[in-house]
């Protein structure tokens, strides 16, 4: 407990903030991008932006695994439910809009959609009712994909198939680095994804794009030090890869998890809601495990879906081009109770995080 408090020590935070002001350039704008919903939560909840110089911006990239699931894949899950298959999924997927309906809408129509805490719960539910067909909607980045791989490798019950929608983070970071009008100056790499894929996966960002890249943890001090390390690299003109989150992230990452994923998945191009197709950014079940593929088993396939509803600016929020408050629908037509865009749905969505903080502020 003592250590936990020290990772949130306000005096230490003030001192880092002073260092940040010292090292930040006096002119021009610095744009630092993170790609993790939990980082956005830490930054917003602890008011980290208010501690930074006015010319240092921290923007939220596509770090919410639920927000980037395209409508076509929600449509596939809805189709499965409408066909009478019991769909199990994580809670925050339930209200993500599909082209016409969300899984919650499908549930309201009387289909069987059940929320689980983990894929192992999905396996347990299927084993309990062998005469019913189950499908697990497997969303998430490299943090979650290994758990799906564990269960598939462990030979799940015959009545359980998987709708695999896992995505891979570094290709999305490449896309952001290559977006010229985004003008990014550095990356805070996601801590939990990095525990799996390791520091080595980010070498390309300083090397090819000259982008300071720091893997950071999730305590407010982790994030502040991450920002400081990036600004320090910029001031020295020496972009490199640094690890602020050494207590959880190694150079190699979790090799056990990597091996399991390799055995079970193939990497293909994937559509990300609001970003379009990103090459080599999606896991699908490989040929050896195709028997567990819900697409094949239940004949569902949706090529195109309506990703962005009329007026919604999720596609701009997701790359940090605009702040949620700059979207005309934010907290007007689009609220956590009645989300229009995917970013307002998940607790990791940028709009949802900003909405929660706005509510907390107006209540205090």
């Amino acid at each position, binding site marked *: 407990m003592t250590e936990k408090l020290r990772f949130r020590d306000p005096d230490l935070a003030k001192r880092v903030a002073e*260092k940040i002001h010292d090292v930040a350039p006096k002119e021009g704008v610095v744009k630092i991008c993170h790609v993790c919903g939990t980082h956005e939560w830490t930054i917003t909840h602890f008011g980290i932006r208010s501690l930074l110089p006015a010319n240092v911006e921290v923007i939220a990239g596509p770090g919410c695994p639920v927000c980037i699931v395209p409508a076509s894949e929600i449509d596939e899950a809805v189709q499965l439910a409408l066909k009478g298959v019991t769909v199990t999924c994580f809670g925050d997927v339930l209200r993500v809009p599909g082209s016409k309906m969300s899984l919650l809408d499908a549930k309201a129509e009387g289909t069987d959609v059940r929320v689980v805490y983990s894929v192992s719960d999905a396996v347990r539910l299927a084993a309990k009712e062998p005469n019913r067909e189950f499908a697990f909607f497997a969303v998430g980045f490299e943090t979650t994909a290994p758990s799906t791989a564990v269960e598939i490798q462990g030979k799940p019950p015959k009545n359980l198939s998987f709708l695999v929608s896992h995505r891979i983070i570094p290709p999305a970071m490449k896309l952001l680095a290559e977006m010229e009008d985004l003008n990014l100056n550095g990356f805070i790499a996601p801590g939990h994804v990095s*525990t799996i894929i390791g520091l080595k996966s980010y070498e390309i960002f300083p090397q090819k794009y000259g982008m300071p890249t720091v893997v950071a943890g999730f305590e407010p001090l982790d994030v502040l030090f991450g920002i400081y390390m990036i600004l320090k690299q910029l001031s020295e003109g020496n972009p490199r890869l640094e690890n602020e989150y050494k207590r959880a992230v190694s150079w190699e990452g979790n090799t056990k998890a990597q091996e399991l994923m390799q055995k079970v998945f193939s990497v293909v191009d994937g559509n990300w809601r609001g970003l379009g197709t990103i090459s080599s950014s999606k896991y699908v079940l490989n040929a050896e495990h195709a028997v567990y593929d819900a697409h094949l088993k239940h004949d569902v396939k949706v090529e195109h879906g309506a990703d962005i509803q009329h007026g919604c600016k999720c596609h701009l929020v997701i790359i940090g081009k605009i702040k949620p408050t700059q979207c005309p629908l934010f907290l007007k037509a689009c609220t956590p109770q009645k989300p229009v865009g995917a970013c307002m749905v998940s607790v990791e969505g940028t709009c949802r995080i900003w909405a929660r903080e706005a509510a907390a502020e107006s209540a205090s």
Partner: protein
Amino acid sequence: MDFGEGVLREVNVTLVSAKVGDYVLVHAGYAIQVLDEKEAKETIQLWNEILEAETPKN
């Protein structure tokens, strides 16, 4: 697995080599990494070094 303050839940440890007494990082019911206590302490030490090593420019 003890999540602290009396919260107990079963967690799958296939992905890590954890022993009783280790601190682990849990994501959606799976331990994904064993936390290194030594590194955690060193991080705090490193922070202090950064803060102390360089005096403000102005």
